[in-house]
Each structure stands twice: as structure tokens, then as C-alpha cells.
């Protein structure tokens, strides 16, 4: 509830939120011009963790860029792998066997739940609640152990290959995933909803805070849970189906209020939907190879290619320009949080500092993904 107050522009002082600040989850710096505790103007300053992935893509071959994709959004690394694999497979015309598609969907959705769990934990930590973090990390640890069995790494996965996946999943993984889903479904109502979602302090802290209208989302290009919290029914898995998503029935949670509470509820429901997808994928898991045939050195046909993938934070786009030799000629990574954050300046005006942080937490920022 941003109190409409006349902001005196003469007695303001500039406060640097970041780059070392507990609430910015990484090295984001926001230059706040403040009048007392009200924000007169907020201007995010980026680039503190910029590594120029796009130049690395141009210098290395297509396969050599796969490890980089996981270093951008380390919370949902598999979706970034998936995006890069998708655009190169489209460019080079590589077929992916059915089983590999299913394994990709299962691991990506597991990674999405892990990402939402970590977002929930960090969001509660921003709002001052310490204990939920430990409960969320307890669950997330189960997912990471499962994914480590299959991919070999715990956070920055390099699991997908052009034309399939690195190696097959075994029965222990499938059994482990089913137990995990049963366990999380058991804990969700009590530890997540009763302890936190229905808590009056939390409701008052994030309800009616940080209103983002659908028009603002469209003009700033915000996608993912931020857009779905403002009433825009846009999920790439449904609107622009890729991989084998059309074969699963899951619904896209959309809330129309557009405040932090709506974005919070969107992500909590999305965890439930991801579990549904995983269960259906495990039931319909076909046999067969996990690696299609792909040439060792890829030389895709010259042209312009674009692929969009739904990550936990929004639509990740790869704009690829090839000129026929073994290196990508140009790769532009459209990171979802880059656009989601661009509306922060406009929405945070007139807000309290504490509300601005609750709003920033509900945007679910991952800074290395913004700075690339």
C-alpha cells in the first residue's frame, strides 16, 4: 500500500542499494534517490558481473558454449541448456529421440521446482523469516541429489547435448523422483502454506505491494511469473509449444491482481504444475536411445534462428545468426530477468524501502542472468 505522499524533490539523498547488499542476491546496484524512507527515483545499475558470454559464443564452437549456458542462470541451468540445444538443433536440423525429449522435460521441470524453492527461501529471507529457508533447502537438497545422480553436477549442469542427453536415467532416479514428489506434496500444505502463505504478517507485507499492470508488462517485455501475476496468460510451454510439452496436460496459473502476493501465488502453483508434468512424463516414459545422430563438428546452414524457452523467471530467447562455419556468427541471449527488472524503476517510485525490497524479491532476480 504505497501511501500517496507529496515527495519533496529538494531534500532527497542518494542511497546505494548494493552492489554488496543482502537483498540483491548477487551484485545488482540500485541507485535510490530517497526522501526519508520513500523512494523518489530508483535506477538499477548493471554490469558488476558481466562476463561477455556472447563473445565467448562467437569464439568457440557450438558444443563449447554449452557449459557457459549453465553459468548464466545457475538456478535453472537446465532450461538454459535446453534453450541453446533447441536453437542449434533447429539450425542444424538434428532429430532428438523421443526418450531424450522426455528426460529433458523431466530434468528441466525438476530444476524448475528447485529454482522456485530457492526463490521462496530467499524471498522469505528478504522479508525477515529465517526458518522457511531451511525447510525449503531440505526439499531442494533432495532434487539436487537426484539430478546429481543423472547429470554429474549439482548446480551448473552441462547435461544436454545436440540431439539428446549426456546419459540415461535409471530406475533409482525414477523411484527417487516419485518419492520426492510424494514427500513435497505432503509437506507443502503445512510447512509452506500454513506457516507462511496464510501468515498475517506475510500477507500484510506483500499484499497490495508493487502493482504491475498488464500494460506495463507488455511495454517493458516482462514475461514469466511476473506477467502471469498481472493477468497475462502467457507460458511458452503452452503458447509456443516446443519439445514434448503438448503431450502433457497441465494448466498455467494466472492471477490478475498484479501485486507481489499474486506473483508469489503463481510460483507456488507452478511448483504443483511442474510436479504434475513430471508424473505424467514418468508414466509415459518411452524406451529407446537417448542420443540421436549428430555430426561431431556442427556447421549449420547460414541464416537467422530464434528459440524461446520457458525458464522459472520468464521467456529465455536465443537469437542465433549463422554464416555457415563452425562458430556461431552472432548469439544474442534474451534474458527474462533483464526485462523484468527494467520495470523496477517505474513501479518503485513512491514506495517505502521495505516495500521496494519485497517487490524486488517477488521479481525473482538472478543477477548473472541479467549481466550475462
Amino acid at each position, binding site marked *: 500500500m504505497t501511501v500517496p505522499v507529496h515527495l519533496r524533490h529538494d531534500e532527497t539523498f542518494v542511497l546505494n542499494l548494493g552492489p554488496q547488499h543482502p537483498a540483491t542476491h548477487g551484485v545488482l546496484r540500485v541507485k535510490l534517490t530517497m526522501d526519508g524512507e520513500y523512494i523518489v527515483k530508483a535506477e538499477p545499475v*548493471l*554490469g558488476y558481473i*558481466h562476463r*561477455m558470454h*556472447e*563473445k565467448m559464443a*562467437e569464439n568457440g564452437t557450438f558444443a563449447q558454449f554449452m557449459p557457459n549456458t549453465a553459468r548464466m542462470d545457475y538456478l535453472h541451468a537446465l532450461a538454459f541448456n535446453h534453450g541453446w540445444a533447441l*536453437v542449434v538443433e*533447429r539450425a542444424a*536440423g538434428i532429430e532428438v529421440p523421443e526418450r531424450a525429449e522426455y528426460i529433458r522435460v523431466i530434468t528441466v521441470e525438476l530444476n524448475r521446482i528447485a529454482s522456485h524453492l530457492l526463490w521462496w527461501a530467499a524471498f522469505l529471507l528478504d522479508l525477515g523469516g529465517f526458518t522457511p529457508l531451511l525447510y525449503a533447502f531440505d526439499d531442494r537438497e533432495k532434487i539436487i541429489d537426484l539430478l546429481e545422480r543423472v547429470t554429474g553436477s549439482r548446480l551448473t549442469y552441462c547435461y544436454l547435448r545436440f540431439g539428446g542427453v549426456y546419459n540415461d536415467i535409471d530406475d533409482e532416479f525414477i523411484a527417487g523422483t516419485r518419492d520426492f514428489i510424494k514427500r513435497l506434496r505432503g509437506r507443502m500444505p503445512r510447512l509452506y502454506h500454513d506457516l507462511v502463505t496464510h501468515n498475517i504478517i506475510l500477507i500484510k507485507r506483500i499484499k497490495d505491494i508493487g502493482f504491475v499492470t498488464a500494460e506495463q*508488462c*507488455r*511495454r*517493458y*517485455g516482462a*514475461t514469466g511469473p511476473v*506477467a502471469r501475476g498481472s493477468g*497475462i*496468460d*502467457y507460458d511458452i510451454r503452452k*503458447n*509456443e509449444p516446443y519439445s514434448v510439452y503438448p503431450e502433457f496436460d497441465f494448466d498455467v496459473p494466472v492471477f490478475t491482481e498484479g501485486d507481489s502476493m499474486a506473483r508469489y501465488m503463481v510460483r507456488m502453483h507452478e511448483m504443483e504444475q511442474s510436479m504434475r508434468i513430471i508424473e505424467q512424463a514418468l508414466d509415459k516414459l518411452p524406451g529407446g536411445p537417448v542420443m540421436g545422430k549428430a555430426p561431431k563438428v556442427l556447421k549449420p546452414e*547460414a*541464416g*537467422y*534462428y*530464434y*528459440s*524461446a524457452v520457458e525458464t522459472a523467471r520468464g*521467456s529465455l*530467447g536465443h*537469437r542465433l*545468426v549463422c554464416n555457415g562455419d563452425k562458430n556461431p*556468427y*552472432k548469439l*544474442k541471449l*534474451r534474458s527474462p530477468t*533483464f*526485462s523484468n527488472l*527494467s*520495470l523496477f524503476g*517505474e513501479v518503485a517510485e513512491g514506495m517505502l524501502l521495505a516495500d521496494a525490497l519485497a517487490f524486488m524479491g517477488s521479481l525473482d532476480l538472478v543477477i548473472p542472468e541479467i*549481466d*550475462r
Partner: protein
Amino acid sequence: MGLVEQTQAALAELFPEPALPAAPAGEGDQEAPPRQAGVVVTDAARHGSHLDVLCRPDQVVAVARVLDQDGYFLEAISGVDWLDKGQFEVIYDYNRLGGEHCRVTVRALVDRNEPAVPTISGVFPAADWHERETFDFYGIRFQDHPNLIRILLPEDADFHPLRKDYMP
């Protein structure tokens, strides 16, 4: 696919002379005769975008305004450095937020020595940061952009890293 035709028609008024339907986008740029400005339908399954619009830099704002009316949102702005042809290329990607899916790619070629493209941050505020980033990496000046300064590189950097002739 009503939406694609409808958008194509909306964009067609901007380009009076008929577009060359023969060469779809990016097919062997060198041999095919250079495409006139125009709208071409491309195969989305492979190239990701339904419509490919090649336009002159000064038409960029007009195209943006047409797409803004149709309810598109700006997904990304990327620059490409065609060193051998001595040209920069700015690619605008527009997409639909919800409803039927249709992605429009607008490409504008600009001379390499004095690259100047009018800004569309008036129409789409999302373009503000994307244009600053393209300026940061390529040095393409976006005319009357609210504050065209570097966004990702340190302020005192005097180089444009993504240019093909950039040697660290």
C-alpha cells in the same frame, strides 16, 4: 493463421513496392539478389519467427508503432556486425504476449562507419535498456535516446567488444 496474415497486411502498407517472395530470409545472402525492404513469411518451426521484415533504418519507428497497436511486445534487440559487407544490422524481435503465437523479426541494415538508428524507446520502454546494450557492444548510436550510456561495461571503457575487428 489469421494473425500472421493480419499483421502482414498491417505492415504491408509501410512498404509500397512488392516484397520479393522468392528468397526467404537469410538463405545464401551472398548469391541471392539483395532483398528489397518488405515482409516475407518464414517457416517458424525452423527459424523461430513467422514474419521477417527488412526495412530501412528510418522506418524502424513506424514499424514499431504499427506492431505496438497490434498488441505486440518487444522481445529483444540484437546487433550483428557484417564486417565483410561493411554494415551493421539491428534485429528487433517482437512477439505476442498470450493468445495466438506470432513472432515478427524486423531487420535494419546500417552503414558501418556512422551507424545511427532512431530509437523506439518512445514506443516501447523495454527498448531503452536493449538499445543501451547494443550501443555498449557495437557502438550503434540510437538517435534521441533518453540516456544513451553504457549499461554493462564499465563507464570508462572506450571499446566495443562485439565488433568483429575488436582485438583486446
